[in-house]
């Protein structure tokens, strides 16, 4: 067992990054990520890491520098939130298109306008189809564990794709929790040496990165990217199995809670899953068979596995901490519906948007969602397919 500590989510992820000890980090401050990169910069200033830290003038340049550094041939990190992720989004697509295994914690925050510094998932959801791997984390322990595993997944020779590690702004990034650290050597052995593929710095074997590809071969490149995405799930599970050996902690593509015999269920990402699990216990105590599924691997989304895990439910509510304006459903709900579409018998699905701009997710909201599902079972009727909850009318 590792060292037990009481730290914030940002501190825990910064510690994971110190233990991984990457070659280059490019960083730009943005709330609520700032404190994570400050801590990392302090490791560099005090010789605790070998990392060259580039303190860039914008997130656009942080991802641009990461692309250059990663193509040069080494392990590269950055971290961001909200507007920062949106500003760098152009280069986020390029990082994955060039198959560069950059690891980037995303401390989830609302997006402007109106400007709001608090936690919701609008930032990472805006980047969900950028060809990156996305691992989502309920708490500081999961953020720490995901950060370490992200390097193994991203750098796997069958994959070579960048990875985001998502954790909720303030709720997780700034709250102190109990967690277990692994020791430095265990982490360092787990991630192993970085293996460069076609590095720019191999001047004896010059390569060109970033060619123009038009109608003749562009589509083949994009298909190749999609093919790689289809291999990610297996690697995530293999890496999780190895991680269990060093930590005792179990990870999958998603977590299920009291789901096997459940009739109704909640699907929710990140920190709100903790609150929801407590409320599910209350419903179970009342004799109502409720359960939960919390996606961990959000991209590539494990449609088949999620579908298999949820298909037996009679009704389920997908809680989205982001909206997809004009798409009628929140982004997570669209994925869950897609996952279940293939089944003849499938649960009734409703979607509730909660917690935008850091609004607290209260047990009463989970109760409301579950009571709605109970009512759907009793009446066979859906009141509202999608609604905002915890909102002033």
């Amino acid at each position, binding site marked *: 067992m590792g060292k037990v500590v009481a730290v914030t989510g940002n501190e825990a992820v910064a510690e994971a990054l110190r233990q991984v000890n990457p*070659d*280059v980090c*490019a960083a730009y401050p943005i709330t609520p990520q700032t404190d994570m990169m400050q801590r990392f910069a302090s490791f560099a200033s005090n010789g605790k890491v*070998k*990392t*060259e830290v*580039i*303190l*860039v*003038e*914008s997130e*656009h*340049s942080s991802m*641009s*520098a*990461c*692309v*250059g*550094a*990663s*193509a*040069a*041939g*080494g392990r*590269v990190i950055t971290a961001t939130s909200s507007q920062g992720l949106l500003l760098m989004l*152009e*280069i986020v697509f*390029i990082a994955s298109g060039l198959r560069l295994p950059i690891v980037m914690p995303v401390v989830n925050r609302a997006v402007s306008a109106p400007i709001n510094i608090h936690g919701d998932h609008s930032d990472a959801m805006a980047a969900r189809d950028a060809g990156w791997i996305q691992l989502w984390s309920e708490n500081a322990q999961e953020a720490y564990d995901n950060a370490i595993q992200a390097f193994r997944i991203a750098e796997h020779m069958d994959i070579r794709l960048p990875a985001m590690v998502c954790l909720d702004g303030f709720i997780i990034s700034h709250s102190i929790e109990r967690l277990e650290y692994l020791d430095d050597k265990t982490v360092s052995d787990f991630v192993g040496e970085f293996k460069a593929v076609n590095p*720019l*710095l*191999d*001047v004896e074997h*010059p*390569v*060109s*990165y*970033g*060619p*123009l*590809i*038009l109608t003749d*071969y562009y589509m083949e490149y994009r298909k190749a990217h999609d093919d790689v995405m289809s291999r990610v799930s297996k690697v995530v599970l293999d890496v999780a199995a190895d991680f269990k050996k060093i930590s005792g902690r179990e990870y999958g593509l998603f977590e299920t809670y009291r789901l096997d015999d459940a009739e109704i269920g909640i699907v929710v990402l990140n920190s709100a899953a903790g609150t929801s699990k407590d409320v599910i216990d209350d419903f179970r105590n009342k004799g109502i068979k409720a359960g939960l599924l919390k996606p961990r691997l959000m991209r590539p989304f494990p449609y088949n596995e999620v579908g298999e895990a949820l298909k037996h439910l009679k009704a389920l509510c997908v809680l989205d901490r982001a909206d997809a304006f004009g798409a009628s459903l929140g982004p997570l709900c669209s994925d869950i519906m897609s996952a279940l579409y293939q089944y003849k018998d499938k649960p009734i699905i409703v979607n509730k948007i909660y917690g935008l701009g850091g609004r607290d997710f209260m047990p009463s909201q989970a109760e409301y969602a579950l009571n709605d599902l109970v009512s759907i079972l009793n009446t066979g009727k859906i009141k509202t397919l999608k609604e905002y909850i915890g909102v002033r009318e």
Partner: protein
Amino acid sequence: MATAPLSLKELSKKEILFAPGHRMCAGCGAPVIVKMVLLATDYQIVAGNATGCLEVSSCISDFTSWKIPWIHNAFENAAATVSGVEAMYRSLKKQGKIDKEIKFIAFGGDGGTYDIGFQSLSGAMERGHDMLYVCYDNGAYMNTGIQRSSATPVGADTTTCPAGDVVQGKPQQRKDVTKIMAAHGIPYVAQASPSHWQDLVKKVRKALDIKGPKFMNIIAGCNRGWRSQTNDAITLSRLAVETCYWPLFEIENGITRITVKPKEKRPLTDFLKPQGRFKHLFAPQNEQLLKSAQEQVDRYWERLLKEEACFAPASESEDTKE
């Protein structure tokens, strides 16, 4: 670093690291500049390239003209991208994982340098990366079809500031990006022209021997955008220098030196007249615009002479006389 003597005979023995077969337009100045820059040095180079004519024409999968490691990321981030490559080099060198001496060059056009890439360039220069940024300045967004940039000279006709009945081409002056880079306090900034190849090659050699961020602005003829002949990129670059429209100077550690002083300063119209983009300026009613453009060139040149005089050593060195 020991380099071959500066003679065409010696340079011609070197391998051309920018291979033929690229798809730049006939008569374009940019590939000439790239070849000269890469011929200038014996260092091993890793290059970055902003999106633009040079980039889209030199690496079309599965072909590349670059016989050195090369990376294209996006339009506005060649400087940030190369700063990342250079940081990885420093990291791996510090860790003993690489022992070679490598130098880093970013190439960008004026759009990718003066405009959309300006912040990225400023940031990389301020951070002190050991890299040379080379802007090939053809004075407009030529790749997308001759739209005005902040490098477009006053009065030039472009597709987004077309000379019309009420507007006589671009109303604004050029942004003086060379001086702005000098204002970053970086160790070396220079302007060069492919017409003066010895001067250009010397500047590249000097820049690469200096540790830290360096910036070179090089005029690049574009017959499509300048509305000129396919065989006159070098002639027009020479006229740009001889009219003092494009003075050849360097600012090394804050000290300005004019590296080529024309024997006789030619009138600006010698540079403008052969170019279709300035044709409308020669209409009788635009006489005042031509006069004003000449005055701007004169003011800039006089100011440059004064800047040089401020720091002039007791005797002027020989190579400043053409």
